[in-house]
């Protein structure tokens, strides 16, 4: 019998605000956090949230992660330390790039001929595992602590890492998620020359005139627990990671494999793992970057995995209102998916007035949609794909 893995806590910082509540409420109200071609957490002040001293020693991606983790652990009702043996609580946080702001600041010193001034805090601030390390220190998590660095699927793979640790019996709970703050001119230039960033500054995934994604910053953290552990302590259960599928294209470093075979396999694996079929899916939170290639290939892959049933499954992309959070995307979008199920209301593709006809018949959401208020849990998929050919599908039940 495989251990069930439930979600007892969620926390997020996004351009829609600090907390999971604005993330859901604003998204289903059709609001976007994108301003002037970027999706920044403008109201977020690390020093105010964490204290000046703490903030000084942290890159912004870590500040975002710590505040998201604080909310997640509060939601879960954890105290200063975990409610289970802390050595059985891993912490895995994905980040595609890590502390880019720190890296750029310190490299500038070298350019200015000030090598002696390079901060000794540089590596502790920029290393991709810093977010997980700081969360573990703050909350006394003594199981395995690591980053998953797999571009834009890292946040989703961090969730998978937590599920595996709990299912295997190695862990009783896990704190997992993703964090990113890499929205600099440098990053924008890279994704522009790579042809992935939206030159128009407006990103409408799955539209006929889509022209790329918008850079976003933020963090999402989830508390996962073995179901029996959560039930024994009387925790409030928000949902369940019912299944996952992780595959690789083994094709190209940036372009998705055109048949979508590997992405489709991630989806069918996740469904089988959840003991579900395509008829059970109430919603798909797409990877939906808004690049021409991603969106077209994602639809091909979904159709391949789910057959005709795909055409009547409501689908939308959080990147239409959050931008692309790179290594944080998978975690934040898993939270958005969970919230959509819990509140029985699906966020639309912000700005979409009609789906690209070349994508064929779909149920792409141009407006928020209420789900039936029926009893019993619903199932949704959250897709994440990453440069490198990484494909992750999470089957979330709530």
């Amino acid at each position, binding site marked *: 019998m495989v251990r069930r893995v439930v979600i007892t806590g969620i926390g997020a910082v996004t351009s829609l605000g600090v907390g999971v509540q604005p993330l859901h409420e604003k998204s289903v109200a059709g609001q976007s956090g994108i301003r002037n071609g970027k999706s920044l957490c403008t109201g977020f002040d690390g020093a105010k949230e964490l*204290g000046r*001293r703490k903030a*000084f*020693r942290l890159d912004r991606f870590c500040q975002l992660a710590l505040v998201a983790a604080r909310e997640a652990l509060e939601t879960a009702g954890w105290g200063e330390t975990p409610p289970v043996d802390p050595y059985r609580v891993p912490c895995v946080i994905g980040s595609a790039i890590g502390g880019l702001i720190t890296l750029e600041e310190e490299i500038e010193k070298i350019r200015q001929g000030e090598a*002696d*001034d390079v*901060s*000794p805090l540089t590596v502790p601030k920029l290393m991709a595992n810093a977010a997980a390390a700081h969360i573990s220190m703050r909350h006394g998590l003594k199981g395995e602590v690591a980053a998953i660095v797999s571009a834009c699927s890292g946040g989703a793979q961090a969730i998978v890492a937590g599920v595996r640790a709990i299912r295997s019996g190695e862990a009783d709970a896990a704190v997992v998620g993703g964090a990113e703050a890499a929205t600099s001119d440098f990053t924008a230039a890279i994704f522009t020359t790579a042809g992935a960033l939206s030159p128009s500054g407006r990103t409408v995934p799955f539209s006929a005139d889509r022209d790329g994604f918008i850079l976003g910053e933020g963090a999402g953290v989830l508390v996962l627990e073995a179901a029996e552990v959560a039930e024994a302590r009387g925790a409030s259960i928000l949902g369940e990671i019912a299944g996952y599928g992780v595959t690789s294209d083994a094709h190209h470093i940036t372009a998705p494999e055109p048949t979508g075979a590997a992405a489709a396999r991630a989806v069918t694996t996740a469904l089988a793992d959840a003991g579900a079929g395509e008829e059970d899916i109430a919603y798909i939170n797409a990877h939906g970057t808004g690049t021409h290639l991603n969106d077209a290939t994602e639809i091909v892959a979904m159709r391949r995995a789910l057959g005709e049933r795909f055409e009547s499954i409501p689908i939308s992309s959080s990147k239409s209102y959050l931008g692309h959070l790179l290594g944080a995307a998978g975690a934040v979008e898993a939270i958005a998916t969970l919230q959509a199920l819990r509140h029985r209301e699906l966020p639309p593709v912000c700005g979409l007035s009609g789906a690209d006809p070349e994508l064929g018949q779909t149920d792409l959401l141009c407006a928020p949609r209420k789900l039936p208020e029926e009893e019993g849990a619903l199932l949704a998929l959250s897709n994440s794909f990453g440069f490198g050919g990484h494909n992750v599908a999470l089957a979330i039940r709530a």
Partner: protein
Amino acid sequence: MKDIATSLDKDNVLSFLTDLILDMGVEQNEFNADATLEDLGLDSLDVVELAQGVKKKLRIAIAPGDFADAVTLGDAVERVLQKAAA
């Protein structure tokens, strides 16, 4: 720059180090010359930053190791003055 170094005294070095430490996010109400670096929450990485600040802004060649036996902020002021006079 020599002028800055020769015009240094305990008060202005203490004030300078205080500003550097404030920039590191330590709260001001924790300060006095008797405060230990440990009390202020400074670790070995912060001491390196302190030495970098002194070197850059006061043009005094001081290495992090020069603060090795500095227990209090007052001790750190003394080390800076010794280096400035050397």
